[in-house]
């Protein structure tokens, strides 16, 4: 029983730590856009451990990982950052999430090269993040 638990915990650990800690990774955007994203997120650096942002066509998908103790205000952080991002990128449809699942999924997007596939995937992630129940 204990061993099984340990194995399960180890698997989950490995799964959870896929994305690098403390970094902000932006893909698909122009260099100045990437800088802008980093700039917006850096302001809240103490609450966010890492972030991934993806530009696909008119979509901007940003996911952040919130520090465990700041997760109380997760909803508030999401709201604030979404507003800031929308201000910074008025031409893009901004989707911002602090959800672990969305983070993992977005993190995987890198490997997809084709624009169409990427776009499709982003759409599913967007719909996933909007689900309430």
């Amino acid at each position, binding site marked *: 029983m204990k061993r099984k638990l340990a194995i399960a*915990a180890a698997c*989950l650990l490995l799964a959870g*730590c896929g994305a690098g800690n403390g970094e902000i990774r932006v893909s698909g955007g122009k260099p100045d856009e990437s800088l802008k994203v980093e700039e917006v997120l850096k302001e809240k650096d103490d609450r966010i451990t890492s972030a991934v942002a993806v530009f696909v066509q008119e979509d901007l998908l940003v996911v952040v990982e919130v520090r*465990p103790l700041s*997760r*109380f*205000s*997760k*909803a508030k952080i999401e709201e604030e950052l979404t507003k800031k991002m929308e201000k910074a990128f008025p031409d893009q449809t901004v989707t911002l999430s602090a959800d672990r699942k969305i983070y993992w999924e977005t993190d995987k997007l890198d490997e997809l090269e084709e624009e169409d596939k990427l776009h499709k995937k982003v759409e599913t992630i967007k719909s996933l993040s909007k689900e309430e*129940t």
Partner: protein
Amino acid sequence: MMASFLIAFVVGGLFCVIGQLLFDVAKLSPGHTLCILVVSGAVLDGFGLYEPLIDFAGAGATIPITSFGNSLTHGALQEAEKHGLVGVITGMFEVTSSGISAAILFGFIASLLFRSKSRP
């Protein structure tokens, strides 16, 4: 990652400590205790405090029975936001359904499969 497990453990454990205090100090029956916890979950959500707790503690806040009161209120409020006062009634079970339906389903299955045994 490990932190989230630890937080779930501590927060969930604290809910149970409150329950145990109601058992042992207030001398309430399990039924009374659970009802009080459910009501307090519903009230906490009324003040918008339970959802942040779920964001913080994950299963540490969704597994205790307080989350049942929370999700009832939450469903009611969500619907009320869309449809006004009628939504208060119609939205009640919108979010909660899984717990009750699972309990009914597995309860029925268990009655097919198991017999009770008296062992100390």
